[in-house]
């Protein structure tokens, strides 16, 4: 039972809410309140757009019990366009093989169920290949 932890992390998990340093402008994820770049206080919240590229990845076939339902799945190191690197699952790959530099975008998905079907459903960020659009923005 980790209800309080899931609840505390909901904004960063659902929407990539981190922080921006008011002193040097660095964007921080996860939020850590002190800027690792300039060492000053950084408590201003910042919601990331969530686009980036794949740096590296691996496929989890022997998944921890809580994630077995979705195995096999791909976990990747992602370089966000807005600065930070983070690890997250890749989703909606279909027949696509990941490759270094693959453009991805953040989506909110089901991560797992706590205590199987009786507990909370945990949602959070994953990344998928950028949706191809016929009409460019």
């Amino acid at each position: 039972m980790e209800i309080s932890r899931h609840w505390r992390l909901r904004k960063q998990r659902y929407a990539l809410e981190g922080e921006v340093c008011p002193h040097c402008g660095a964007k921080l994820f996860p939020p850590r309140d002190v800027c690792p770049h300039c060492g000053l206080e950084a408590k201003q919240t910042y919601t990331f757009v969530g686009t980036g590229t794949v740096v590296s990845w691996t496929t989890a076939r022997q998944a921890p019990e809580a994630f077995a339902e979705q195995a096999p799945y791909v976990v990747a190191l992602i370089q966000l366009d807005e600065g930070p690197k983070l690890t997250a699952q890749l989703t909606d790959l279909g027949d696509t093989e990941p490759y270094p530099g693959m453009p991805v975008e953040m989506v909110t998905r089901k991560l797992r169920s706590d205590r199987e079907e009786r507990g909370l459903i945990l949602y959070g960020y994953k990344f998928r290949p950028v949706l191809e659009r016929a009409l460019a923005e």
Partner: protein
Amino acid sequence: MTELLRPERPVGIVGYGAYIPRYRLPAREIARIWTEGKGGLPIREKAVPGPDEDTVTIATEAARNALARAQIDPADLRAVWVGSESHPYAVKPTGTIVAEALGATPYTQAGDWEFACKAGTEAMVAAFGLVGSRMADYALAIGADTAQGRPGDALEYTAAAGGAAFVVGPAENSLAVLEATLSFVTDTPDFWRRAHQHYPEHGVRFTGEPAYFHHIGNAARAFLEATGTTAADYAYAVFHQPNAKFPQRIAKSLGFTEEQTEVGLLSPVIGNTYSGAAIVGLTAILDVAQPGDRILVVSFGSGAGSDAMAFTVTEAILERRPLAPATQDYIRRRTEIDYATYTRWRGKLVLK
């Protein structure tokens, strides 16, 4: 005395968005398992949610697309309403999770609506009322589902996943202005699911004449009569689409041509997205409509009832349309799966 519902303050759609999962299960694949590939197929294929998708995730992405087009601060939403028959929790609102993910919390309504396949338009009509009465400036109405059919049942061919979201706001900031709505509802038991049951029950042929055609036909005819319009006044029309045949038949009987209905008729390639069905069709229409075009939407929900509503597209559509993916972008993104993958992902295998 009129049956029409009209807001005191003119309202409309400020932003719209859709979401359709990547995976497709062809109807012939279901027929291969259950009928040796024999018999007619109601659609070509249906959209199936991936193993990490549900009504919350579908509603969230559709809503993000709607907000991208609306260009408003999510904190200005005073309602995040999700219509669905597949809310992930029996008790715990879908709306609060979606509102949190969008950044709309905490000063907002966040309820869930249920009315089989018309829960989405039910939420839309409520949003028109909330904004139209000046209680709020912006409200978000969503219809999303990950519908399940009993393995081998006729509904398994069509029960699909997808959703659409609409930011409702003042007419002067709308890309499509609401003309009016009208609802037609009776207690008609064509389709239902009791508590704790995985799969729904239905009245087989009873779902046609006394349910779908009676309600959607009467709602549409009463709406056309009350607004003094005919099929020829609309550039586009979209009807609830549980399969390919029903919406085509009702459209024809009301005098609509194929040109008016083909853009919004998506069930042949994505299936019946339940609460999303008529309104995902509406998003596909808004993706191509031009300023001045009038659009008629008539939903249907089992149990049973229909909401009819009409919009006039404004100039604002031209600059807001490109701000989010088109519905056809999601339809083009397609990975076919087989029945075995489908049964695993949809939780139809007994593991313990």
